[in-house]
């Protein structure tokens, strides 16, 4: 069950710098650990995170095995116009999760 928490201000003044915070539920198994029987636990991580605003990409991050479970990413952008943020997480084993949030710019 993929659950995401996204925090985008609902309203902002035009030109204001806003912070966007995202938290994604994921085990982020690095692939370096072994079970008690000595078998390698296969890697299972999120490899890519993308944020688009009204279709245009505004932020992207590549994720690697050293990143903790349930990755928390926060970044800043400038509120230019009203619209919709779309978030996408892509990972191993066909993992895909999306979320979206709308903002009104006055």
């Amino acid at each position, binding site marked *: *069950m993929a*659950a995401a*928490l*996204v*925090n985008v201000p609902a309203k902002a003044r035009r030109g204001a710098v806003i912070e966007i*915070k995202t*938290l994604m*539920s994921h085990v*982020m198994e690095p692939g370096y650990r072994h079970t008690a029987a000595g078998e390698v636990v296969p890697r299972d991580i999120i490899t890519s995170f993308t944020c688009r605003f009204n279709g245009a990409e505004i932020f992207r991050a590549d994720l690697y095995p050293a990143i*903790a*479970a*349930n990755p*928390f990413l*926060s970044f800043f952008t400038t509120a230019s116009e009203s619209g919709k943020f779309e978030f996408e997480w892509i990972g191993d084993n066909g993992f895909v999760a999306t979320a979206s949030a709308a903002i009104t710019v006055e």
Partner: protein
Amino acid sequence: MTPRALLAVALLGAALPALAGEIATADRRSGYDFMSPETKAMQDDDTANPAMLSVLDGETLWTTKAGAANKSCNDCHGAVDVSMKGVAARYPAFNAASAAPVDLGQRVNLCRGQHQEAEAFAPESRELLALTALIARQSRGMPITAGGDPRLTPFLARGRELFVQRQGQLNLACANCHDDNWDKHLAGSSITQGQPTGYPIYRLEWQGMGSLQRRLRGCMTGVRAQAFDFDAPDMIALELYLMSRARGMTIDAPAVRP
């Protein structure tokens, strides 16, 4: 000795036994108070607190029909923010059917068995942690009231006994650290008082959720003792004692802990 000095000695004598080894009410501190500003900020912001992911899962489970009875929690209890308000603050509570206290996770599983006719969730399973996190969330900001029921008296006494009982190869009782040395450090970490205000917690060391039972088992392994089994009567008695020891403190569940 002047009468006044005699009185002072008598008062001191009267006050000391009550405090022996135990933390005075005014000195009690939640694990939150020992955390770094960064970890506090993570807990305080619901969009940064990873335990809220578990609460989200719990909200889905609350309204999901389950078992032979095909009922969801919501079908009997209604909205969780109304029906479960303050519930976590009074658990472990006395269960008349088994004539023993049950903790919140056991209560959820009793409900599953009796009313949903579904299989019990395994201890520390994602589902059980999600539902207990959701229920505990509804008591955030409320004072802990557990242990007030007079029928719990013998179980509280047993819990207290376990708390001061030395155990393991290191031969340490809970009280040796958490009553007597809570203001000190063990390596780089604060020892803390062991006040269970925020369970289930998201523990950074685990990179996941865990119950008070999991935390207690970690401590027992740490002193190289045989950890109690999940849901063992002694485990519940110890949980009950810890919650009653924190009576009046504020619930901050679901908490983040280092």
